[in-house]
């Protein structure tokens, strides 16, 4: 579904990474790790078309990224659920409408029962009418996950989803991701939390990709 072939990224001040080849197939579960600034967020952005690589090819659902028109990009993003590092909500709309936003922009009405079920699944039913700034870090992360999956996407990309939450909440978010993966969705989580990766290995056959020396490597069993 998402394929990167010999991709290099260069922001102008030198090369961030090069020769990255990656394929996200249905049902796969990947972790992406590496030091800060090694390109984890950049790689995720390539996977949903917010950035274009300096070299190499990115295929998103069969389309080459550079050949996609703006409306193609919009349609592709409806098939990719992204949990952003900073969550990015519309602060003037209540949580329920924020979670349903992907449906709204696609011109579809949210089914009230399904939305309530989704909010209950991430444990946010009581906060449905709260505004995003009133939520705690963990609540925002779970809301971001709910928004990422409301369109029933084929791929879920998460950038440091456990960045601002305690260990208990991290495990809860991880369990939610594992449940989604069991439903056949491809999952890619960028994180530098090795404990989270270890915790995941007991639940799911996850592969760990690590940025080292500007290259992406498949990490061995040393984790």
């Amino acid at each position, binding site marked *: 579904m998402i394929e990167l072939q010999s991709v290099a990224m260069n922001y102008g001040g030198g090369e961030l990474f090069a020769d990255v080849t990656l394929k996200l197939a249905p049902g796969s579960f990947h972790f992406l790790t590496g030091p800060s600034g090694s390109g984890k967020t950049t790689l995720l952005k390539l996977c*949903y*078309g*917010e*950035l*274009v690589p300096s070299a190499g090819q990115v295929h998103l659902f069969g389309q080459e990224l550079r050949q996609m028109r*703006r*409306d193609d*990009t*919009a*349609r*592709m*993003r*409806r098939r990719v659920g*992204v949990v*952003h590092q900073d969550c*990015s*909500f*519309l*602060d*003037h*709309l209540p949580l*329920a*409408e924020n979670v*349903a*936003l*992907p449906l*709204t*922009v*696609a*011109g579809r*009405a*949210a089914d*009230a029962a399904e*939305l309530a079920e989704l909010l209950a699944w991430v444990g946010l039913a009581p906060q449905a009418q709260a505004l995003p700034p009133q939520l705690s870090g963990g609540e925002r992360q779970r809301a971001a996950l709910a*928004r990422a999956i409301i*369109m029933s996407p084929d791929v879920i990309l998460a950038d440091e989803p456990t960045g601002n939450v305690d260990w208990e909440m991290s495990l809860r978010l991880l369990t939610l991701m594992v449940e989604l993966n069991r439903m056949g969705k491809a999952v890619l989580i960028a994180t530098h939390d090795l404990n989270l990766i270890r915790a995941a290995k007991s639940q799911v056959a996850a592969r760990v990709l690590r940025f080292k020396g500007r290259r992406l490597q498949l990490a061995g069993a040393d984790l």
Partner: protein
Amino acid sequence: MTRRQPALAAGRVVPPSGFTARLTLVSAAAMAFLAVFALALSMATGRLASRWNDELARSATVRISAPAGQMAAQTAAVLEVLNATPGVASARALSAEEMQALLGPWFGPDLPLASLPLPQLVEIVESAAGIDAEGLRLHLAAEAPGAVLDDHARWRRPLVEAAARLRFLGMVSLALIAVTTAAMIVLAAQAALAANGQVIRVLRLVGARDQFIARAFVRRFTLRALVGSALGTAAGLGAIAALPAADSAGGFLTGLGFSGAQWLAPFAIPPLAALVAWAATRAAALTMLRGIR
């Protein structure tokens, strides 16, 4: 969550903007108010130009300056020539009373007319075909040496030109108002787009098409321009209707306004303002969106 129409939903995703919204409304109203006056000016001067053209073109005057003894004979000769000239509907020598009435405003009512060597005036009313002024002049010179034809062209032309120029300036003002309205709405829309950069990025990331995002802004500014210019147009029309009535002798100032079907023209201002706002906001939004992947 209730079911909502997509258009309304598109409006809601952008946060409400109280103060700038009112500014756009007020500016659109002011521009529409000015547009009504520019339109009134154009139409009034247009009417004036065509009225002067019509009325003055259909009349001419022959002035006869001759010694007292020859006056009657030359007047008779002039009338005879005129009656035989094609294009003259009627020709008539002005009576002493009429001359008195014409001169009264300048010399007062007690003017001893008989004691002054006044020229005799002959008023010509032309038929639709008009007269050949040059041919008539030559003919008059031969029959009555003291007769001078004045077809009013000399002083009519600058007046008609001035009126036409005023009308042109009115049109230029209308065009300037339209351009200013567009510029003002582009500025307001760009401010709104910049202030909502975060909202736009979030919408784009969750899969919104450019059309959807642009629509949220375009809808607002189009509605504001429509409502604002409707208010401004209503106020302008009220002000014009409340002007003192113009009498037939009124100059162009008291004649400022609309007549008959012209009253319908200002009603085109609000839809046109809305159209300008629609195009301006759409262009601004799509330009801004090109910078966000």
